[in-house]
């Protein structure tokens, strides 16, 4: 039974991943291409400014795979892989809880997916939202990685504690008040965590870069408009750039909003679709009459 449930979880995630790929291909890729176009223009301007000012020029990122490969098979394998991994984890948690509650399988599948969506994605997203290419300084990737994973881990732990608390309290106070208390008990440490963890723009490496072209001080790493930060004029392509003059715009706010909004919808699609499919498969799996054998009863007992 266990392996079959896991395979059903992974299969649900796989189907959800395919749907997510179709969604991403239609909605995210145009936005990603705009972001990459912005980044290329920005890098070109920064190179010129740094050369004109006699400063070191940042090396280009590697291009191992073409944009075509990245936006098709690369995108598909990442999204499908994520779907399969999350589907398998949901199935494992389902198996651990199976037989210990009176919640029917498809409701449990939806609850687990809601938990995953919140803990793995949405709650970390509130503090450190998804960013398109062009946003994110390469010299802070380690710190940002640690902060993001810390946020994911803390969100999952706090959420699990809240669910447990609600479960313990529901007999005494009823489902409504128990849920309310659990929600408050969750929100207090979660808000403290959000307040305590640093904004990415305030990381010391970013503060140290503020004298560089294109690294104006900001709360995030979203590219700010590039200006001539020197006190002397610079000459680029025969044009004189006065001190403080704007050379290149900041990142397009609409592109950023669209990317984050689609990112959220995409996760909703992955978790939502996989939970509905997994729930349907589970109901069918457990309702199918199988030849009852004492061995099955034993295993059911061994599993609680």
């Amino acid at each position, binding site marked *: 039974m266990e392996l079959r449930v*896991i395979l059903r979880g992974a299969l649900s995630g796989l189907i959800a991943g395919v749907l997510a790929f179709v969604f991403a291909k239609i909605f995210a890729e145009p936005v990603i291409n705009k972001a990459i176009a912005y980044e290329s223009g920005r890098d070109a301007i920064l190179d010129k400014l740094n050369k004109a000012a006699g400063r070191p020029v940042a090396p280009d990122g590697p291009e191992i795979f073409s944009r075509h490969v990245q936006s098709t098979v690369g995108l598909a394998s990442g999204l499908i892989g*994520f779907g399969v991994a999350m589907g398998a984890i949901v199935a494992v948690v389902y198996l651990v809880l199976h037989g210990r509650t009176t919640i029917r399988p498809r409701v449990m599948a939806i609850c687990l997916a809601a938990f995953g969506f919140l803990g793995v994605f949405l709650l970390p997203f509130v503090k450190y939202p998804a960013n398109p290419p062009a946003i994110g300084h390469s010299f802070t990737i380690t710190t940002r990685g640690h902060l993001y994973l810390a946020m994911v881990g803390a969100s999952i732990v706090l959420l699990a504690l809240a669910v447990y608390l609600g479960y313990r309290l529901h007999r005494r106070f009823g489902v409504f008040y128990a849920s309310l208390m659990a929600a408050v008990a969750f929100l207090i440490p979660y808000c403290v965590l959000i307040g305590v963890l640093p904004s990415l723009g305030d990381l010391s490496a970013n503060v140290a870069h503020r004298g560089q072209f294109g690294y104006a001080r900001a709360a995030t790493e979203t590219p700010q408009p590039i200006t001539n930060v020197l006190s002397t004029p610079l000459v680029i392509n025969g044009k004189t750039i006065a001190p403080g003059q704007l050379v290149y715009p900041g990142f397009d706010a609409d592109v950023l909003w669209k990317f984050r909004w689609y990112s959220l919808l995409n996760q909703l699609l992955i978790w939502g679709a996989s939970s509905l499919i997994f729930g349907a498969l589970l109901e069918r799996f457990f309702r199918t009459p199988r030849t009852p054998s004492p061995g099955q009863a034993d295993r059911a007992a061994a599993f609680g």
Partner: protein
Amino acid sequence: MTSIPVSGTSVIPKVTVSPEALSRTRVLVLLGTTLFLALAMYYFIGVDEGMTSVFGKTMMIHEWVHDSRHFLGFPCH
């Protein structure tokens, strides 16, 4: 496992285990392995060759999953 002698009972129940049965240990191994593989997948799609790297500092995996890493909400580069 065909029969379990139980002290104090005169009738010894005959227990047959279906061939698809898993023992408790096997269940734990199965769940543990699944969890490990799933977390490894999460790691390689979301994190590897960014802040840390398992197979050295190539950028193959990072570049391959580049778009999905951004879109799934991970910090990328």
